């Protein structure tokens, strides 16, 4: 039982930047924790904020969303729309008393393999620090 707590994290990565950044981190053999489980999405603008809430409800310990830097979005503006949605969602979750560090957002480009690894470490560390999650969790075991 004294095995270290390992948070289960879902990472929504945009196909064109952050996913490619993760790929580069891999081929460059940069080490990073295995906690973030990647879901590849076409663009950060594809992330319906309901995906984030649903992930929490279904039991993930944290959610990480990463897309292209402003100006780099493959569809030009997807990440600008996403930025507005995430800003409001994050503030609202904190308003209801939900830990802010469980939903994290970043921009990582296809050439930033090292940065991807760093962010993965940071995301994992922040969520790990909060410990197992209780709030908003749907208990399907009963």
């Amino acid at each position: 039982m004294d095995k270290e707590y390992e948070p289960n994290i879902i990472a929504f990565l945009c196909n064109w930047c952050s996913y490619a950044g993760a790929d580069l981190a891999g081929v460059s053999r940069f080490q990073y924790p295995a906690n973030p489980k990647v879901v590849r999405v076409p663009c950060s603008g594809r992330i319906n904020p309901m995906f984030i809430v649903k992930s929490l409800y279904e039991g993930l310990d944290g959610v990480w969303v990463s897309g292209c830097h402003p100006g780099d979005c493959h569809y030009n503006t997807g990440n600008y729309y996403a930025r507005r949605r995430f800003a409001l969602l994050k503030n609202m979750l904190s308003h209801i008393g939900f830990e802010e560090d469980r939903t994290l957002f970043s921009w990582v480009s296809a050439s930033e393999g090292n940065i991807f690894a760093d962010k993965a470490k940071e995301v994992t560390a922040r969520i790990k620090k909060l410990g197992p999650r209780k709030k908003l969790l749907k208990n399907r075991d009963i």
Partner: protein
Amino acid sequence: MADKIVENIRKEAKRILEEKIVDIVIGFEKGTLPYTASPVFIENPDDVDKLIWNRYCHNNLAVYLRNFPDKKIGIIVKGCDSRSIVALMAEKQLTRENIYIIGVPCEGMLDKNKLLEEFGDNPPIEVKEEFLYPSCQYCEHKNPVIYDFLTGEPVQEKEEEPYPDVVEFEKKTLDERWKYFQEEASKCIRCYACRQACPMCYCEECFVDTNSPKWLDPGIDLPDLQVWHIIRAYHQAGRCVDCGACERACPMDIKILWLTRKLNKDVRDLFEFEIGIDPEKVPPLGTFSLYDKEEFLI
């Protein structure tokens, strides 16, 4: 004052029905219980005497506008209801030409429950500010922002901090906020009256009703209730006009405006957007600025 308004409403409703400017007028008639008024739909000019106006006309009648797609509609609105019309126009849900707006400068609607508790069935002549609904206490647009006919002199608008309640709430600790949310959400019976009362909840299929994808279990476990509250409020981001109709419709007296008002405050602070003012302006989540703040990023 109120009598004059009623007289003007009836006269104008009669005129627009007789002259066939509209097919139907949506307004209020006398309620069957103390401190109430009920929505009424009038098609015959001879029926306009049913129309009333008092401090209990709290429903947001804009919610009915989309029910009559083939008709020209006359509607009686307060400040907040007129903002719903603007918000719906901004979302291309209404055509201005099909609506004739009779605007009433509003003095605020009175909270039925507070009055019943204080005075029983004998309504007082003079009532104090504290008997207003919360949404009316904070209201910044008592005068309709859009209308074809105004039934009286504009009333004085407030110019104080528009979100004192949100500012105050944000001073609480994380745990206190969570506790409050738990307490409020746990009372919910998922009747969806809040959704039905809101002019902006016009989805053909609400996320709580879809099976594929299934966003949410149908039960009343606390997380189910909380997720319902979170998403319903979030769906109002950049769209809610603070009318308070949702909260007043709730049979469990659950506080829900504290969620949407937080979003409204953020929309104003972050994107400098006030909802329901300009029908030509794209709603804030339908657009962006290159310079939107992104300090929240890691």
